[in-house]
């Protein structure tokens, strides 16, 4: 027996892909392929190795950027949340970073760091880091005072209180920041490949468009979305595994 939530997921997928198929058949635009054509192109690219090579390129700045953003983002966010001084010093940088129009900044990055991996990692970080930092800082700052007092009164050291109380307590908001940050990182990775040098998945998109192979172009876009969704699901699994009680609800509910 398939569970109800899975039924609903399948139903919603059928509706979306059905609408896509119909829109492709009308067609709404000659540049809009049907769902089936796109999937055929996806399977073709998956089997002739094009996708594999492309993701080898795309994942490099993506993984490096997301790792840097997560580790430094949570670290800096924790610091900002714990110290008012660092809040004043660093928060504005990340708020500006979050609001900055990234596409306009790319030429400056290219001038400073060239067209290689460094610039692309930077783009991913600029997209992913602010939301991770700001979410972490906010969650750390809002740790319930009574749980911190509890830790102190039961003789916890400052380190105990940070690792055993503040971080777990902040984890739901940190993880939601990570989810937002990771999806922004995916956008950043593709943006970098479209705007800096066409490599990897960005190259498939640009090249297919230039030769009017629209099914391949949409297949590439579809594959990156799928990858992002899978990655977000993985993140959710990690969260449930680490902090079971948190995910189910709060004692203060």
């Amino acid at each position, binding site marked *: 027996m398939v569970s109800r939530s899975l039924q609903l997921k399948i139903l919603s997928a059928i509706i979306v892909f059905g609408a896509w198929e119909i829109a492709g058949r009308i067609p709404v635009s000659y540049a809009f392929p049907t769902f089936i054509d796109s999937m055929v192109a996806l399977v073709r690219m998956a089997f002739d190795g094009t996708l594999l090579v492309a993701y080898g390129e795309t994942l490099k700045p993506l993984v490096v950027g997301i790792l840097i953003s997560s580790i430094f983002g949570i670290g800096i966010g924790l610091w900002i949340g714990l110290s008012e001084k660092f809040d004043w010093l660093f928060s504005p940088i990340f708020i500006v970073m979050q609001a900055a129009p990234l596409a306009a900044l790319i030429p400056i990055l290219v001038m400073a760091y060239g067209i290689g991996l460094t610039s692309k990692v930077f783009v991913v970080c600029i997209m992913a880091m602010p939301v991770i930092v700001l979410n972490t800082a906010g969650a750390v700052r809002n740790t319930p005072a009574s749980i911190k007092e509890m830790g102190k009164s*039961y*003789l916890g050291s400052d380190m*105990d209180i940070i690792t*055993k109380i503040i971080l777990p307590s902040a984890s739901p908001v940190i993880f939601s920041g990570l989810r937002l940050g990771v999806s922004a990182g995916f956008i950043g990775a593709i943006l970098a490949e479209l705007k800096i040098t066409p490599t990897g998945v960005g190259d498939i998109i640009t090249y297919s468009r230039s030769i009017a192979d629209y099914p391949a172009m949409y297949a590439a876009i579809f594959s990156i979305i799928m990858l992002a969704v899978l990655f977000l699901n993985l993140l959710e699994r990690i969260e449930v595994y680490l902090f079971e009680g*948190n995910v189910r609800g709060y004692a203060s*509910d």
Partner: protein
Amino acid sequence: MVMPQIKEAVMQLDVSGTENAVVARNVSKNYGKVEALKNMSLEFPRGQLTSLLGPSGCGKTTLLKIIGGLLQPTSGEIEVNGKPVNAPGPDRAFVFQDFALMPWANVIRNVAFGLELRGVAKSEREAIAEKYIADVGLKGFEKSYPHELSGGMRQRVGLARALSVDADVLLMDEPFSAVDEQTRRKFQEDLLRLVQNENKTFIFVTHSIEEAVYVSDQIAILLPRPSRVSEIIRPTGFRSMDADTIRRNPEYLDIVDRIWASLRSYVE
């Protein structure tokens, strides 16, 4: 001329005769210009339950947190077992008004958390925690999470955590104010039994007059602006009586009335 001196000597003898687990000496606490506590002295006899009772703003929670080492007094000192303290220590355990449970941890980890912070090995601390979970009546809920428990059960977890570190002094900050009336009555009866069976000193903050008179060996009435100890009442007549009959005892009713008469003018 001689009489007052003799009287003073007798008084001092009396003080050293009843052994105190906790003594607050001339404790003051200022928040900027606001005086939360002014020159407060109070003694907490060993093995007894002392209530801090008073209207809101009288500094009873502030005093409790200073005793617990969570706040530093501006001046004055706290002695526990004869030694001055200014930080949390293994001799005191706290029970919080809002339970202060960790929502991401199950009951057994919450109860064992005090021992975990003291570096007790996992198997050992879980064995101790299991015993106290059973003692507070939560056997079978070891693997439950706080959000799956009712308010009363959550506070039982908080109580088990405080008992499991085996401190001499239990500091309870309005522990029953966030649970419903019926659970509260049950808690009060359980507390009486706990005071009798465990050789511990209880310091109990409450704003309920009936609750204070029902459970206390000694009630310190605190009054605000400036915060001070206005009166210490020691109910004696009904302390040894059955829990069910206390509420009908004339002394109990008299004390409740008397306290209300003295607090009435401070309640706005």
